[in-house]
């Protein structure tokens, strides 16, 4: 049996660089102390970290810590990211020394870097050091935090991506601050360079972390479980008993395999005697890796959508059609490399739109249902199909989805000018201004004689109070159109682009004001013409989007959840079984310190076997204790009270 100090140095010698690497490029190596730490970078990912953590949680390791004489334990100051490893806790800890040594190779197969880093570093050394820092757990932690922090302004300040008008208002309200914030991208947080930098670094770190870990895990899974330590009696759930049944070992193998333990037979295996090692729970690390890889998949999915996808919005009035070409959109946001020439050639007409609202109680006026009846053709010449689109039921077409996102009113107006000519006869989109759908709109008829411009307020359920006309309920219970008519140069011919929802009344002559209900006609003053409020129709707005990355993002998300569950709920643990013949014809002398050798066994002429079983868990000892006890019970050992 090796003395603790010997063992420590033995372990140090097989990992000469690790202790030094932990503390940075110029730190002296910790060789000579009893601390073996895994340095940052690849090897900090996973196994060691968990071992340290759970070593702490495990009763065994906690006991270990407490039992350790002061000053003899690992120095936490020197701890690398992954911290104390089980073997560091083990030496003075009452864990059997073999077991302690064994636990050192839990992470066996991990990449061993030999950098031979001394106090002086060349450029390569610095690069390597930088990479190691970037891929360390601590950096990942800091970056996770930074990313969370960086997202906050995006939720507090209005964002151009979702509400450009609010952004403009905000900046206008606080000119100095607004401009400064704008310069640094605070109104486009989620596409700002600093935000992107954080998550890109995080993902570089993640990949740098995961790749070496995958290789190490792959090797670890194919490596045999280390053989049983010499003494099993101080492992978790350790049980020793005597039996004359030569089939105990075989029964143990069968029982373990039945429970899907991976069983490695010991080299000392010889018929009914010998040892075996069993291990279970590789899925924990597999899950962890799957989770982190899945995060990369999600990012790729998001990126694909942003690069090759597109989305547009369009307002469609009842009875109006839309065909999917760029010019028909009210706004269109193509991805960086989206092909906008080849949009899928579908077309649709919104034949009907219906909205209902809450009529009773404290929620009066809240929307209750929206539905748009759509007649569509997936491609030119295809037969016409019909579908009702509601908020959670988009129209799915080849390569795009059509979502109902908003609605409003569109009064049908018929305007006749002084000459009796009908200069306008169509529905006009009015934009809602409040929850009761008090809406505003304009109608411009520059070709009328005289040129006419109308601004109007539409109230689906109209009242007039001190504040003027407004709506008190969003449904069209009592529609009122309150029109103000102007004449003069509407300025549509001078080439200055003008907003279809605004009429610049400066320089215009107001003809008069009037309130109209559906079906009513207003004779404009001065014989300038007539305005008929024919009917009240509706419009709906649709978002049409194409996102080639969302399937991947979804697949990544599902994989991430699966990986997480494996990683957080599976426990990795080992069980060792040793059977020795202690009396009878085939007996070998019991190994030293056979505490429980009972004399009754020795008196029996038949072969008596001593069976020892013990476990080691990286999580709490109790977890493996139960399994050890189950195994003991299965193979005929003494059943202990739980």
């Amino acid at each position: 049996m090796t003395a603790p100090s010997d063992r420590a140095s033995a372990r140090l010698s097989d990992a000469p660089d690790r202790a030094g690497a932990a503390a940075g490029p110029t730190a002296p190596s910790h060789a000579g102390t009893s601390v073996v730490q895994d340095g940052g970078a690849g090897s900090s990912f996973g196994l060691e970290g968990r071992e340290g953590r759970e070593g702490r949680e495990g009763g065994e390791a906690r006991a270990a810590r407490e039992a350790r004489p002061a000053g003899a334990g690992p120095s936490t100051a020197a701890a690398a990211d992954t911290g104390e490893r089980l073997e560091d806790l083990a030496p003075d800890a009452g864990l059997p020394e073999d077991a302690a040594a064994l636990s050192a190779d839990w992470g066996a197969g991990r990449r061993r870097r030999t950098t031979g880093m001394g106090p002086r570093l060349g450029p390569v050394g610095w690069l390597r050091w930088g990479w190691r820092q970037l891929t360390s757990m601590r950096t990942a932690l800091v970056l996770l935090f930074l990313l969370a922090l960086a997202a906050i302004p995006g939720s507090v300040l209005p964002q151009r991506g979702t509400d450009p008008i609010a952004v403009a208002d905000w900046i206008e309200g606080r000119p100095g601050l607004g401009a400064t914030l704008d310069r640094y991208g605070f109104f486009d947080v989620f596409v700002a360079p600093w935000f992107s930098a954080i998550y890109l670094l995080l993902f570089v770190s993640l990949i740098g972390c995961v790749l070496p870990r995958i290789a190490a895990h792959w090797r670890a899974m194919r490596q045999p479980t280390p053989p049983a330590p010499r003494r099993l009696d101080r492992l978790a759930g350790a049980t020793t008993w005597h039996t004359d049944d030569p089939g105990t070992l075989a029964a143990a193998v069968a029982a373990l395999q039945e429970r899907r333990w991976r069983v490695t037979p010991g080299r000392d295996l010889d018929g009914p005697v010998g040892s075996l090692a069993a291990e279970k729970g590789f899925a924990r690390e597999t899950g962890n890796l799957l989770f982190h890889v899945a995060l990369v998949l999600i990012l790729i999915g998001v990126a694909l959508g942003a690069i090759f996808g597109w989305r547009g919005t369009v307002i469609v009035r009842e009875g109006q059609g839309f065909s999917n070409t760029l010019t028909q959109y009210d706004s269109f946001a193509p991805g960086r490399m989206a092909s906008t020439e080849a949009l899928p050639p579908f077309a649709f007409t919104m034949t009907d739109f219906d909205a209902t609202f809450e009529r009773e109680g404290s929620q009066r006026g809240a929307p209750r249902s929206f539905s748009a009846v759509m007649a569509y053709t997936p491609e030119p010449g295809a037969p016409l199909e019909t579908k009702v689109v509601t908020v959670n039921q988009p129209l799915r077409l080849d390569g795009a989805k059509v979502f109902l996102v908003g609605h409003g009113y569109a009064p049908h107006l018929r305007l006749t000018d002084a000459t009796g000519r009908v200069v306008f006869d169509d529905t006009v989109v009015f934009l809602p201004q409040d929850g009761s759908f008090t809406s505003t709109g304009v109608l411009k008829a520059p070709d009328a004689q005289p040129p006419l411009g109308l601004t109007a307020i539409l109230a689906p359920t109209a009242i007039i109070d001190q504040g003027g006309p407004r709506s008190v309920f969003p449904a069209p219970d009592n529609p009122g159109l309150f029109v103000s008519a102007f004449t003069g140069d509407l300025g549509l011919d001078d080439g200055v682009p003008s907003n279809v929802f605004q009429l610049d009344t400066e320089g215009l002559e107001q003809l008069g004001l009037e309130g109209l209900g559906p079906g009513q006609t207003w004779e404009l003053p001065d014989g300038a013409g007539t305005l008929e409020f024919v009917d009240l129709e509706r419009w709906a707005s649709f978002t049409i989007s194409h996102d080639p990355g969302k399937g991947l993002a979804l697949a990544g998300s599902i994989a991430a959840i699966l990986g997480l569950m494996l990683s957080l709920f599976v426990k990795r643990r080992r069980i060792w079984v040793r059977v020795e013949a202690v009396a009878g014809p085939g007996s070998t002398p019991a190994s030293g310190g056979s505490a429980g050798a009972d004399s009754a066994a020795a008196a029996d002429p038949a072969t008596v076997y001593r069976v020892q079983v013990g476990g080691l868990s990286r999580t709490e000892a109790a977890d493996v204790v139960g399994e050890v006890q189950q195994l003991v019970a299965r193979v005929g050992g003494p059943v202990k009270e739980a």
Partner: protein
Amino acid sequence: MSLAQWSNLFVYASMAMYALAFVSFAVSFAATRSLAVDEGAVPPGAPEPAAVPAVAGAVSPQAADAAAEARALARARSPQLEAEMAAQARRSRWGGRSDGAAALPPGRRAANIGMSLTWLATGLLLAGLVARGLWAGRAPWGNMYEYSLSSALAISGVFLAFSLRRDVRWLGLLVSAASLITLGVAVLLLYNDSPQLVPALHSYWLVIHVAAAIIAGGAFTVGAAATVLYLVADRAERRPEARFSRAVAARIPDSATLDTLAYRTNAFVFPLWTFAVIAGAVWAEDAWGRYWGWDPKETWAFITWLVYAGYLHARATAGWRGRKAAVIGLIGFASFLINFFGVNLFASGLHSYAGV
């Protein structure tokens, strides 16, 4: 009486029971100490009470207080109590199975009454929610009022589920308070008398996504309560002069046990929260044509997720375990609260449903 009124009645009754449970747990907390003091079980090694005042008189009133406190604590941590706690710790990882011990240690009876009342309150709340759901003809988590009711149910539900396996009576005080506050906010500020939903919520994803978020919220709350207690216990263990912490620590499991409980709770929630966020994204894709749009609710869900991911990382990073990780966990919980209440009340976005 309509089902809605029945629902309200159940909710009020449940609040009353939570209040009583809270009082019971508080009594238990107080009694744990005073009974121990009254019994005057001074451990053999403890300083003789009479010996101290002489010193105290010579120093200052505060010092006298401190000395008295120290004595009280020495008594509170009487050998019997120590033995009983140690036995408990041996019996289970989180502090012992709730077996009906014959000789009730101080405060035990009140804590048991608190547990029974918590069961009752939770049952009543469940009845209230079922009535509400029957009345509305849908899952009873369609507006802020209902979310809050469901959240209170989730908080105590998670706590009671724990209590089936472990003795977590010491957590009852914080949990009953959290449930009571949540219900109070719901009833006083968020009451909503409509069975109908806004159109965006007409989806089976409402059931899935919101249920996941609410259960996660309940567990986050329990995890945060354990984390707070962990910090107190840890402080008491590190700084014997911290009187309040020591007084509290005398009534709860040791810091390592609390740390484990907090970790397990948060580790249980994290995948669930991840699922809730992803289910939300899938739903958003159907409702709004994009699965992620950095709406304030989405942003804070993401922030919460990141911070808890940070928490899990911290627990595997040397120098970050223990206290620092616990603080990160609490920041995560704060983000969750901001997401749950703050965003609905103060931010405007697609997630700000009519009727708050």
